[in-house]
């Protein structure tokens, strides 16, 4: 209470200083929520790819560019020693002309379902049932796509201009299946075929098309070793095991996370500088008060504690308001993105607590020099100060 009054004796200045910290913490919370969401996606992805090898046509870059390959690779893969089953898969963008998007873009996924029984990444169904090998014109909708497609069991959705009947809706998995629609393999082959340039079309058989293969190793076979063997045996293809996947994503997310936190920390440091400035001014203005306190027997430690308390208070109030604003912002942004299935922010409790603590610590650190300066004042000189 007394701390509050001491800080707010210069109202505008206190407000501006606190506002500086608020902006910094706001940035930290918003940016951090972005990074937390990505971390979650990556962890989900890591689980998704935990025990299998995915094979695709090798191409520059990476990401989700699609290059078709022939299903003739499947029997060749299954002929390998460590392979139990190889399943052909198709993965194409949900919107043919999708712009840059955050994280995983919306996808159309399909599989020949040969590996279904071996799949360790179990998805559960909020409603309905999985696809069956003889389904045609049916679809299973990921949880983030439900709203976007206005999907209900039994309703008809449009995928690339074709009608599909919804037979299943997935629970949230926090990774790839969330923003994808799974359709029967044959339908996906036809969509993929239609996407191709006419020149290429004439040379291909639509029923032999796929974009990748998922390889399930035999029990006891190391998927990372198997991926290496596939890469050696089939040049032109790229096989990615769990470890490689992890490396790829953590590398790209680490850079992103570093930048994101860097930006937030810089704005917080600026806030910290303004706390130093404010506290220095405050000590300067209150020189006489320090003299009075010393004449009443205040120890140096006590003077330091008082001013540190004030700067910690500035940090704490700035931190809490920054957190509140950041929370509102992420809430609003997620709500706005909900309809399109892009919840970009994840405000975790560790991020929330961490940001406020950081702001308080920053306040304390910024207050160190001014407080120490106040404690060192000669009491008589301080009392004579006008």
């Amino acid at each position: 209470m007394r701390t509050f009054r001491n800080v707010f004796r210069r109202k505008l200045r206190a407000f501006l200083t606190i506002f500086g910290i608020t902006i910094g913490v706001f940035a930290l919370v918003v940016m951090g929520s972005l990074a937390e969401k990505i971390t979650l996606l990556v962890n989900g992805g890591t689980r998704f790819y935990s025990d299998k090898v995915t094979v695709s046509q090798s191409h520059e870059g990476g990401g989700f560019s699609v290059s078709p390959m022939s299903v003739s690779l499947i029997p060749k893969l299954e002929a390998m020693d460590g392979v139990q089953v190889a399943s052909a898969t198709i993965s194409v963008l949900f919107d043919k002309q999708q712009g840059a998007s955050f994280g995983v873009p919306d996808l159309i996924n399909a599989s020949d379902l040969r590996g279904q029984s071996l799949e360790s990444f179990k998805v559960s169904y909020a409603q309905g049932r999985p696809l069956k090998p003889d389904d045609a014109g049916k679809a299973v909708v990921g949880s983030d796509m439900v709203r976007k497609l206005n999907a209900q069991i039994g309703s008809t959705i449009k995928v690339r201009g074709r009608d599909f009947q919804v037979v299943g809706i997935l629970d949230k998995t926090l990774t790839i299946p969330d923003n994808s629609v799974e359709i029967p393999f044959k339908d996906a082959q036809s969509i993929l075929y239609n996407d191709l340039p006419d020149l290429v079309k004439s040379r291909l058989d639509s029923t032999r098309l796929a974009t990748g293969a998922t390889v399930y190793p035999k029990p006891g076979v190391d998927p990372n070793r198997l991926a290496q063997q596939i890469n050696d045996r089939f040049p032109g293809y790229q096989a990615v095991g769990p470890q490689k996947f992890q490396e790829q994503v953590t590398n790209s997310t680490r850079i992103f996370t570093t930048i994101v936190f860097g930006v937030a920390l810089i704005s917080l440091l600026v806030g910290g500088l303004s706390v130093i400035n404010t506290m220095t001014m405050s000590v300067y203005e209150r020189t006489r008060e320090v003299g009075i306190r010393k004449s009443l027997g205040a120890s140096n430690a006590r003077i330091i504690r008082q001013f540190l308390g004030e700067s910690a208070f500035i940090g704490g109030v700035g931190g809490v308001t920054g957190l509140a604003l950041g929370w509102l912002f992420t809430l609003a942004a997620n709500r706005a993105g909900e309809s399109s299935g892009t919840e970009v922010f994840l405000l975790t409790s560790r991020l929330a607590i961490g940001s406020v603590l950081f702001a308080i610590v920053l306040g304390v650190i910024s207050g160190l020099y001014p407080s120490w300066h106040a404690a060192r004042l000669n009491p008589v000189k301080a009392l004579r100060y006008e």
Partner: protein
Amino acid sequence: MSSDVRGEAQSQARSGDTRLRALDLHKTYELGKENLVHALRGASLEVAAGEMLAIMGPSGSGKSTIMHIMGCLDNPDRGEIWLGGRRVDNLKSRELNRLRSKEVGFIFQGFNLIPTYTALENVALAGEYAGMSRRRAKAVAAEALAGIGLGKRLRHHPSELSGGQQQRVAIARALVNEPGVVLGDEPTGDLDTATSHEIMGMMREINQSTGTTFVLVTHNPEVAAACDRKVCMLDGVVKRDVP
């Protein structure tokens, strides 16, 4: 130190135990390389327990300086300070803090209250610095303020009080830890004659009822006349008892 200095200091004590004794104090301020100000040049003073002493003297004669040194706010360059039979000019800062809060009370010309604190908080602060819990300090402070006629002004800030009321708050603050000595540096200097009279009467009453020793610096002959004894400072030395 010469024995006649000791003798002089001794002779100043009137009766009873010596509460406060300054022996041959020297203090020099440096205002740049060549410019030395000798604020004290061998000042000695002895104050008996329960005595109310006035220090007079021209501006710049070292009155404030000797008060600060006797109140353990500043160190002398040379000389001794004895507080109730204990030498205090060579103590560690922790012990000096304790002395400032418990053994000595200060009253200043400009009142020196903390502007953001209420009357109650200003007085309680002294109790807190002396080691009381905040709650206890508040209780004691409320009592002290009531005793000095400000029971209805506890939640007022200094800016909401008259000069006389502010000085009464300062007196309550100086007394809250029941110190042996109260040092007042021109406590009535900023007050009009009537209020000055009232404040002086109040201090005199406290002095007589509690036996607290008072040392008051003053330019006001009326204030000095109300004291038991007065001394005069000139050029950094305590000259003599003024009759």
